[in-house]
């Protein structure tokens, strides 16, 4: 197998503790933001950006996506693109109605 990171339990535990620590911090941050006095759109944006950081950590280190092959990236890139299309175009379609109509 072509894993680039060295394989030993101690090293992994060290990496994992860092990841866990960051996840704890980001989770605390999200909760903090949720109690802050902000408008909802701002709040949602902030909280989701922190969640993305969190997800990035899990995907890139725990799922070792960083050292993954091109093939996997290509598939995931298409998936993310199509998901964006699904959400974005649907939202757009729901927002764009002739004046005076309801749905």
């Amino acid at each position, binding site marked *: 197998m072509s894993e680039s990171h060295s394989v030993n339990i101690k090293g992994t535990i060290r990496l994992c503790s860092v990841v866990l620590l960051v996840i704890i911090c980001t989770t605390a941050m999200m909760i903090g933001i949720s109690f802050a006095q902000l408008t909802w759109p701002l709040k949602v944006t902030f909280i989701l950006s922190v969640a993305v950081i969190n997800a990035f950590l899990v995907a890139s280190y725990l799922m070792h996506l960083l050292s993954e092959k091109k093939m996997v990236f290509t598939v995931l890139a298409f998936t993310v693109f199509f998901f964006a299309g699904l959400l974005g175009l649907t939202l757009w379609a*729901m927002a764009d109605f002739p004046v005076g109509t309801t749905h």
Partner: protein
Amino acid sequence: MEKNVQQFPPFREPQAPAVHEEHGHHGHDEHHHDEHHEHAEPGFITKYIFSTDHKVIGIQYGLMSLLFMLFGFGLMLLMRWQIAHPGKAVPLFGPVLEKMLGQMASGGVISPELYNSFGAMHGTIMVFLGVVPLAFAAFGNYVVPLMIGAPDMTFPRINMASFHAFFLGGVVMLVSFFVPGGAAQAGWTSYSPLATTIPTNGQAFWLVGMVLLITSSLLGAVNFIATIIQLRAPGMTWMRLPFFVWAQFVTAFILLLAFPPLEAAGLLQLMDNVAHTSFFLPTGLAVGGRLADISGGGSPLLWQHLFWFLGHPEVYVLILPAMGIVCEVIANNTRKPIWGYKSLVYSALFVGFLSFIVWAHHMYMTGMGQTIATFFQTTTMIISIPSVIILTCLFISLWGGSIRINTPMLFVLGFLPMFGIGGLTGLPLGLAAADLYLHDTYYIIAHFHYVVAPGTIFALFAGVYYWFPKMTGRRMNEFWGRVHFWCSFVFMNIVFMPMFMQGIKGMLRRMSDGGANYSAARVPGAIDTLPDSVMHLNTTILWAAIGLGIAQIPFIINLFYSIYHGEKVNSNNPWGATTLEWQTPTPPPHGNFTVEPQVARGPYEYSVPGAAKDFTPQNEAGGPPAPATHAH
């Protein structure tokens, strides 16, 4: 290997040396032959029902989906009777219907509710249980691993699970006819809130069935993609893949990424039906004149978006494998290379990609705004370009060939203009202004049936006739094949061509009496009355449809008769084909190839100047060196 012609049953393991080599590895490899012990003849159940061999699974899919197609066709005949003779008892089958379905068919007459059930189930069965499993799962399973020189699919047990999920889904769909309230009545698109408010349990069955079918497709898609990426034989580079494999590859990606949103939508609608949530039910929904007891707050359009996010790519799931089959048959029977192989491949990839962002052209009628409608019209017009490129390449491939006219080729030659008609009549529907008039009329029925019935299904027939000798070692009867083709071709056109006219005249679809009441309610001679000439076409269509049904009888008999009594083929490669599936023993044993093929050339080397024969198999040595992308 040359003269290794086997009798039916085709799945017996021939005593080829390669099979015995596997015994050395029994200890640490339980993955792909734990169900198969080469020495002890496996029992019927392990061999035909719990088989992990991609060829057996392909044939299982094939037979199941042909049966479902016949069933779906039967539903259609009953509906056509009702349209032509509204309110009259169905001859012959009327009493049977009454006995089986009770009140819904009292007196042998198809009630409007039953008509709606038949309509919904005809669509569902034909699309999800007939054409897709036949085109993608059956042919894909049987042919793709052989074409790329692989011993099997990458995950044989997942492959088996996929078939079983499909089977279960089919059973659930069939059972739904007999539950209280009858089968689903909200159309194959199952639009909410109709799908939730019609009082039948059949809708929940439909949704469970769909979830099972989607799971099956998903497992199949993962398997196909992994197989095509991982198991190509040495030397089988991407640009040496036969176009059929490319078509299946793109199809698998569409299924992988477009189906899950529908699965999500199916789960949400199931919650609406069973747990009484309001995902797709708007606030203030009234049912039967009374405010429905729901929380409301949902969005019916959300269902349509999630449905058509699959629904449109599904069209390409139906058509791409068919195009792949057509391509193989044309190259083989014109005895010359396919014109524009690379254009075909890139067009297929582009179609697959674009098919994800055109879906809302099915929804112009929802009153969407101009901007978003313009976006979807633009993408719709763009996606027609690669489709036209594909069809053009196939047409040009005929040019200058010394064409062998046999049954598969006849069906393919039928496919080309028929699919052309289907495709071109779709253009007005892609433009919102024209669509507003034509949508929900028979025009749209004629359009997509031209794409799928004389289009895709003809290509699938071509595939059956073409690969039958590989599956059984015998040919299907040529004469009856021609009878099958010409009768189908003629009747198919008499069925669908008049529908264009009916649609343009304004006859609405989904009316259980074929528009009789609608027409009579109008003042005679008024502008929007359906003239008698249009209404009479319903009778013409009915008889043509019956003729079409009769035309399938030679095929059914031919198929089963030829398994045992067909003319034996005298080599492993009776059509003189270049692709790898013909370079195996006939029928191929478990594990497919006796020696691992070394691919040395492209897929369509027919009539190469200076070559000994008019075809050069892909695994014949001495081709141009492979581009160094695949070190084996």
